[in-house]
């Protein structure tokens, strides 16, 4: 299946089918697995009845568990996984840097600073205020704008100046966040720490509706830019000579990726590795074209995060592992495997 040759149509179709099957499996697992197990047949029946096909065989209690507890968590996981994966892939394309992830331009540090500010100064360390996501979103957005301003003001910025500006802004905001944490109580530190590790435990339909419009818009923009990112793989100068408005494309793709990531991070916290490993796995399977990587990242990224969340909430039940820890535990060996396979293929 793996080789350095550009992929055949058959291989691409096979991988696409695998992604769809993984997504279906993740949806069934996300709705069925938990302290109250619900059979696959009943889950499929409930999903079918949801779209007007047949009747659900869920009991009233099961129906409440599925639609009020697990479904919002599942949908938020799908949305977050799709967005982080697409944003990671888009950043890797737009910066021609395989290590780029959705947090490259300071989204994570900005959101982290916003959330810390909210927990320490608004909630006084006693609770995580309900508007923490909004403040985190504002922090993430401000961080990206600062990066954009420092990196050469929009259209004049280049890939390398933006990356360096992202490093500088991230370092500054992280140090501010550390200062706020250091000034706060032990309770605050624990809450901030939990938020930073990411979780879907507080998912609700309202958080889904808050994030969904941003993610749909941003995913559509990034996926549509796949062809332009392929052209950018030959470098800025050559891409311009081929007729691509490189700086405008970079502006649009970075803005969409950052906005979508900021929305997701504000709702679920910082979940690492998804934005790096999902595009890399797909690159190994279907080649380097972003026309293929980005649409498949939507499907596979969504499935990956929901499966990781299912592991997070079941492996040490009734307590939950932080989702960021699970994605890191899954991601690090997968990433090492990708590197090994790549090395073997190129030699």
């Amino acid at each position, binding site marked *: 299946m793996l080789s350095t040759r*550009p992929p055949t149509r058959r291989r691409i179709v096979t991988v696409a089918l695998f992604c769809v099957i993984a997504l279906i499996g993740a949806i069934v697992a996300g709705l069925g697995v938990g302290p109250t197990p619900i059979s696959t047949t009943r889950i499929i029946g409930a999903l079918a009845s949801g779209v007007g096909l047949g009747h659900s065989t869920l009991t009233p209690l099961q129906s409440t568990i599925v639609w009020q507890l697990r479904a919002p968590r599942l949908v938020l996981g799908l949305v977050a996984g799709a967005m982080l994966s697409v944003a990671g892939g888009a950043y890797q394309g737009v910066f021609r840097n395989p290590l780029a992830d959705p947090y490259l331009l300071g989204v994570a540090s900005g959101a982290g600073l916003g959330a810390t500010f909210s927990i320490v100064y608004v909630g006084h360390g006693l609770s995580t205020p309900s508007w923490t996501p909004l403040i985190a979103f504002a922090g993430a957005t401000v961080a990206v704008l600062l990066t954009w301003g420092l990196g050469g003001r929009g259209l004049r910025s280049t890939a390398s100046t933006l990356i360096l500006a992202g490093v500088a802004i991230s370092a500054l905001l992280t140090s501010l966040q550390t200062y706020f944490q250091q000034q706060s109580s032990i309770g605050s530190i624990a809450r901030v720490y939990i938020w930073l590790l990411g979780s879907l435990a507080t998912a609700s339909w309202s958080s889904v509706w808050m994030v969904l419009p941003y993610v749909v818009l941003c995913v559509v923009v990034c996926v549509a830019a796949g062809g332009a990112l392929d052209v950018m793989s*030959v470098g800025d100068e050559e891409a311009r000579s*081929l*007729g*691509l*408005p490189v700086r405008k494309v970079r502006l649009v793709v970075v803005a969409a990726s950052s906005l979508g990531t900021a929305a997701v991070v504000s709702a679920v916290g910082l979940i690492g590795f998804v934005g790096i490993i999902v595009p890399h796995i797909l690159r190994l399977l279907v*080649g*380097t074209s972003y026309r293929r990587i980005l649409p498949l990242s939507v499907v596979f990224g969504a499935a990956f995060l929901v499966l990781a969340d299912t592991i997070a909430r079941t492996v040490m039940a009734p307590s939950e592992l932080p989702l960021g820890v699970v994605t890191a535990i899954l991601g690090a060996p997968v990433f090492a495997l990708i590197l090994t396979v790549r090395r073997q293929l190129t030699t």
Partner: protein
Amino acid sequence: MNAVEINELSVRAQSRDLVSNVTLHVEAGTWLTVIGPNGAGKTSLVETVAGLRRIAHGNISISGQPLASLNERERAKLVALVPQRPSVPNGMNVRDYVALGRTAYHGLLRAPSAGDRAIVESVLERLSLHDFRERDVATLSGGERQRMVLARALAQSTMVIVLDEPTTGLDLHHQMELLELLRQEVTDCGLTIIATLHDLTLAGQFADRLVLLDAGRVLLDGPARDVIRREELSRCYQMDLRVIEIDGSDVIVPVRGVGQ
């Protein structure tokens, strides 16, 4: 009719003149080669014609249209570039690489049309790359790779192609093969070529007109016979050069150890 008109062009970088007050008119369907020592401003000149450098003074028109008034897409339909060191992304096949030449035609959000694909297939056929079309670009030899980059430029369907040292890294056989291909495009398709070359002998054999550039200024401009002159070349390259005629062609030979 002139395909390219360069009038009083100056290009600057960090307050240093790279090209100074250059005026050149290139007739459609002809081949102009810019020669000169390193740092003469050859690359800056062709990159400016390709729209990649800012014009400090003067103007350039391609097919009668002022370059400065064109956006990237409009420009890419008029002039194509073969860079000195093209970036060749791993994992892309030859056909997809050549299809990048159609970027300006199918827009950002659309995939290449059937017409675009037909043009790509035709160029692959013309440059004998058809059998390589599914190959990973990273696995091509230097000669095949350079032909592929030329194919991408031809797929842009422009009347003007600028080439910056297209024979860099190629052995003699592949240098001749590539230059013969270009000559054929000029003769058969009426293509206009502006190229830079370090090999003065090949430059004289293939181009209709040579321009000798030094310190950003035009020293000599005309047919090969008028430009390939021992005294001017020796002075410009700061070494002793001999011009020997073999079968009607001028061959330029450096003489070792006689620096000026």
